[in-house]
């Protein structure tokens, strides 16, 4: 058997691999425990957005954290490509939110004003009416009542990002266990932790970082975390590859670097990841409303995946009170926040004096008083 790791990261998705990469870069001996292939994996079903627009409108720390993340993405993408030889295909040229309902547009505009007030000078967004859009995006659907635009938004190829992270981790000395299926994590009386897998293997480590997505809802309480995490299903369509480039990125319609169009954005409380005909039809209708030229394009694939959500939608970064050396890291926007999870969060886990103050993201905000 291999030597016991200093730090165990439970979860080999985008969040777990970022944390592992960050800790390895700080010189730690890290082992990632990844679950079986058939686990629910947001990292393999997501939309790949690097998105600031609207984030943290009602919660300044999240607006600032997301802003720092999108600003760090270009450098992070270069670092990942250099480490892994895999280009995550970052395109960060701005993104739109399209609205067919003027009331919804107005409400979202208020969110953007609140977000801008938090972020201050240097942050800008645009409001666009139908005439602006017709001028800027000839071919836009007539039912689009308006749009907002944030120049910092972008996207990556999420599967390539995942691959790049895995290769970057390997190149950085991180060990990974595939199909480990962790079923329990116990704090030991003498300090440290014992991690038990479904196949009966047990590994001891000095520190443990729980990044298991929906699995953290089960494992978290074993370490004294509240871990109030729930699943939200999102469904997606993907079309055949197109030779022409879509002249925009939106939070619901994006063109993958290889040419296919991904259409998504549905939200439903659910624990299963099957698609529904009704939601898929709604996605297709939405895409044609926004960009009527897509009407003749064939849909090749569809899937659903489960988002990992906290009650307020913001991340949880929590040190265990009961078990020093145990950490819970969970968030919905694992792609957007990746550059910080691989740098600043690792500082915070290490207790580095230069680490950011992440108290705004601890679990105490969910305490019932």
């Amino acid at each position, binding site marked *: 058997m291999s030597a016991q790791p200093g730090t165990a990261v439970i979860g080999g998705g985008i969040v777990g691999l970022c944390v592992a990469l960050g800790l390895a870069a700080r010189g730690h001996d890290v082992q990632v425990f990844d679950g079986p292939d058939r686990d629910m994996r947001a990292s393999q079903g997501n939309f790949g957005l690097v998105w600031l627009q609207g984030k943290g409108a009602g919660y300044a720390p999240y607006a600032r954290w997301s802003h720092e993340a999108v600003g760090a993405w270009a450098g992070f993408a270069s670092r990942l490509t250099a480490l892994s030889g895999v280009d995550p295909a970052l395109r960060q040229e701005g993104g739109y939110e399209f609205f067919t309902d003027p009331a919804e547009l107005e409400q979202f505009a208020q969110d953007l004003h609140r977000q801008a007030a938090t972020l201050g000078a240097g942050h800008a967004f645009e409001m666009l009416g139908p005439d602006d859009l017709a001028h800027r995006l000839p071919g836009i659907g007539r039912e689009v009542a308006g749009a907002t635009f944030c120049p910092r938004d972008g996207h990556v190829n999420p599967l390539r990002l995942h691959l790049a992270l895995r290769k970057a981790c390997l190149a950085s000395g991180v060990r990974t266990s595939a199909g480990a299926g962790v079923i329990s994590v116990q704090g030991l009386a003498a300090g440290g932790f014992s991690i038990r897998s479904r196949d009966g293997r047990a590994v001891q480590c000095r520190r443990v970082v729980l990044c298991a997505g929906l699995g953290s809802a089960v494992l978290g309480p074993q370490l004294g975390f509240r871990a109030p995490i729930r699943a939200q299903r999102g469904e997606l369509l993907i079309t055949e590859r197109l030779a*022409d480039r879509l002249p925009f990125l939106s939070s619901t319609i994006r063109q993958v670097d290889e040419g296919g169009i991904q259409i998504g954005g549905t939200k439903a409380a659910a624990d299963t990841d099957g698609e529904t005909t009704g939601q898929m039809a709604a996605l297709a209708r939405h895409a044609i409303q926004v960009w009527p030229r897509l009407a003749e394009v*064939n849909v090749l694939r569809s899937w659903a995946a489960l988002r990992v959500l906290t009650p307020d939608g913001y991340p949880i970064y929590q040190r265990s009170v009961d078990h020093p050396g145990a950490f819970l890291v969970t968030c919905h926007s694992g792609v957007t926040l990746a550059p910080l999870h691989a740098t600043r969060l690792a500082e915070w886990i290490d207790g580095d004096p230069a680490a950011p103050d992440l108290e705004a993201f601890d679990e105490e905000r969910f305490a019932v008083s």
Partner: protein
Amino acid sequence: MKNDSRFRDAPGAAARTMRLCLDGRWLTARAGESVAAALLAQDGAATRSTPVSGAGRTPFCMMGVCFDCLVTIDGRQNQQACMTEVRDGMVVERQQGARRTAAAS
């Protein structure tokens, strides 16, 4: 390079009574056969090139699964030749790379 078809007529095969146009050249085909079968019977040349690497492809699975038989049929791009029955006068073009959407109206 000569690209002969690897398929030969079975003894007693029905006569070719339909005409279809492939990239401007008229071919004959049998009533009831798929466009993919008609193309494979003509020659062994690629019937499409892939969008990412540009590699040549011909019909493969003949049952609607592999999407390697994509061609443009009567102006509609990326049609599955194996799932489309030959019609007299049909116009077929090899699919070169990714399809395009219609020009802005």
